[in-house]
């Protein structure tokens, strides 16, 4: 039975994908798990694995072509099958879909305007309910949706094995976040004039950060912390463990997780009709890339030692720099840290990274005169600014958290209490 191969969401935020390379030709047979094509998503280039054994009968979106999630990109089936009914169906779907892409829209004479599906009068026979509302609708059985919700899985990352790629129980139960190898590719050709086309990544960064900034009422809490003892602790650790080399970020991530454990209300999220108190502390670290930024996430920091946090962090940063992070590795941060110290930035405020409700912006460590016991002493000081979503975190709550975190950094031994 011939069927449509649909563009699937290869990242949680993906709405469109560009076919980078087809690995199978029309007429080629493929098996479940074979890589059919590489798809450039908003974040990275992902491999599209085959959901079943079949023959590729027709490619609908060629290399370089773009398709929205849910749109057909090819037809597969058995050898010699007649695919004309499917092609007609696709054509019909295409023509009945409200065309949102204005640039591609042919200019129509005013007299023919009434054929525009957006303003077409509804005939009694028209079965509006059968039209998919949006191409991004994910097909999943009610049970699969329920299990995914219970396990906190994102359906868009799960490949469906049912009819029309419906996600069913077994798909959710067998789903394992896998590391995807990705092909790095040269940035798109540069224009000689000053108009730079937006990459999907840039568009998504713009969209998500705007959404965060506009929907979450941000407020900011700033403190200066004395880094003397933390830096000493780290130094002593390196002296006693000559092979180990831990980054300061790993220490700050770990201390943040200890403070979050004490203040779970900061390790929370907003969900329109409820607050989500996250069960684990997953901390993301903003990492700059050539063409944007990404936040690899160290999962369940509360159960990990600093050395392990650092080891994972280095691996994630390496992948991030090479565009090789899988969606599981850059989503789901319940708290985020952004450190611009390396750039010599004294202090700054960051935009919250959903689903978390707070982001900690760290500035450069600089020697500064501070007053201790009425004496002016030079100490390595760092500025920390916490951006909070006021829907979730009140001023005093955020302040309590910052007080705890400051105390831990001032004296890391306190984190053990």
């Amino acid at each position: 039975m011939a069927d449509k191969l649909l563009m699937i969401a290869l990242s949680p935020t993906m709405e469109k994908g560009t076919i980078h390379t087809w690995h199978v030709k029309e007429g080629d047979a493929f098996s479940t798990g074979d890589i059919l094509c590489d798809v450039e998503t908003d974040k990275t280039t992902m491999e599209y694995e085959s959901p079943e054994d079949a023959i590729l009968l027709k490619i609908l979106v060629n290399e370089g072509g773009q398709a929205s999630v849910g749109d057909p990109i090819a037809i597969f089936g058995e050898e010699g099958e007649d695919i004309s009914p499917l092609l007609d169906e696709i054509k019909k779907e295409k023509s009945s879909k409200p065309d949102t892409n204005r640039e591609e829209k042919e200019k129509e004479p005013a007299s023919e305007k009434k054929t525009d599906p957006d303003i077409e009068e509804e005939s009694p026979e028209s079965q509006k309910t059968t039209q998919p509302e949006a191409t991004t609708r994910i097909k999943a059985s009610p049970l699969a949706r329920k299990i995914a919700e219970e396990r906190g899985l994102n359906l868009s990352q799960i490949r469906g094995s049912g009819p029309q790629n419906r996600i069913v129980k077994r798909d959710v139960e067998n789903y394992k976040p896998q590391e995807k190898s990705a092909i790095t590719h040269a940035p798109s050709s540069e224009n000689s004039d000053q108009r730079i086309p937006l990459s999907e990544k840039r568009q998504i960064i713009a969209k998500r950060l705007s959404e965060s900034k506009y929907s979450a009422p941000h407020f900011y809490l700033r403190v200066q912390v004395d880094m003397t003892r933390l830096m000493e602790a780290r130094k002593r650790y390196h002296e006693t463990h000559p092979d180990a080399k831990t980054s300061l970020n790993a220490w700050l991530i770990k201390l943040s997780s200890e403070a979050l454990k004490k203040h779970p209300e900061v390790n929370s999220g907003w969900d329109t009709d409820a607050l989500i108190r996250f069960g684990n502390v997953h901390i993301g670290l903003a990492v700059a890339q050539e063409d944007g930024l990404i936040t690899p996430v160290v999962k369940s920091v509360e159960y990990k030692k600093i050395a392990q946090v650092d080891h994972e962090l280095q691996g994630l940063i390496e992948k991030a720099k090479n565009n090789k992070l899988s969606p599981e590795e850059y989503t789901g941060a319940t708290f985020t840290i952004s450190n611009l110290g390396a750039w010599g930035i004294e202090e700054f405020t960051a935009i919250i990274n959903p689903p978390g409700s707070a982001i900690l912006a760290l500035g450069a460590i600089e020697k500064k005169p501070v007053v201790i016991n009425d004496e002016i002493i030079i100490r390595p000081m760092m500025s920390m600014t916490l951006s909070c979503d006021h829907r979730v975190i009140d001023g005093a709550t955020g302040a309590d958290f910052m007080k705890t975190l400051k105390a831990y950094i001032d004296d890391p031994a306190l984190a053990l209490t």
Partner: protein
Amino acid sequence: MAVITYREALRQALEEEMHRDKNVILLGEEVAQYNGAYKVSKGLLDEFGEERVIDTPITEEGFTGVAIGAAMAGMRPVVEWMTFNFSIQAMDQVFNNAAKMLYMSGGQFNIPIVFRGPNGPAEYLASQHSQALASIYAHFPGLKVVAPATPYDAKGLLKSAIRDDNPVVFMEAELIYAWEGDVPEEEYLIEIGKADLKKEGDDVSIITFGKPLQIVTEAADVLEKKGIHADILDLRSLRPLDEEAILKTVKKTNRAVIVDESWPVAGMASHIGWIISHKAFDFLDAPVELVTSEDVPMPYNHTLELAAQPSVDKIVQAVQKVMYIREA
């Protein structure tokens, strides 16, 4: 525990209840002197006499109406229809009098009556005599409807039906009368409105009632060989319907195939499918599948006659569909 036929189980139920209550009478075509068209009433005329075992003319509407009147007057009649295909003649009496009398008399007249006989297709009987009418009887409020598929269920349910103060439509099947099964020697009753899990399995729920239980059981054996373990829920009663049992099995297996030898439109199967989708929506991993007769009058040609009805193969296919298994 004795192994007896389905027809003998019915006969025992009639005999025991006629002994227990002198108001229980049996009437219908050929029930007395001929011992019943399917020999269900064998020996009852000799045992209880012609006042209680009554041969009637070929007048379904007439003798059904007479029996309803007798029930209003305090008797507990059991009406045997030679086949439910002939009961179509008597539907006005059943639907408009028996089903509604208690309601329309403001609770003054109970109708303690049982309408029984073979329902559904048998073989070589053509369109007019091969009809499964369960959903039509189940459609009317005021009637209880049962369709037992084993000798044990038949005896226990017929005794309960005779003792019930409401009209009970009791559906048998021509091809079922010779089926054998264990029936205890001692007296027992089966509550109307209780389904029975005939087989346990975790993978899929197959829900059925009446004669198709046999092909469902065969299909379950075929599925076992493929490593698929089915729950088989025999509804036994259609009104009242054991929704609790239906939901319990579906919530366990997350998939349902309903096998009903009636037609697909507005049938029991589609009603049960709606109940499942309405009350167990979040437990479903696949759309509910129905295996029913084809939506055509029953063909006389035997090959077509078999093709028009549910079969072991159709049930296996439906199960594989709800389990998302594609046959190689």
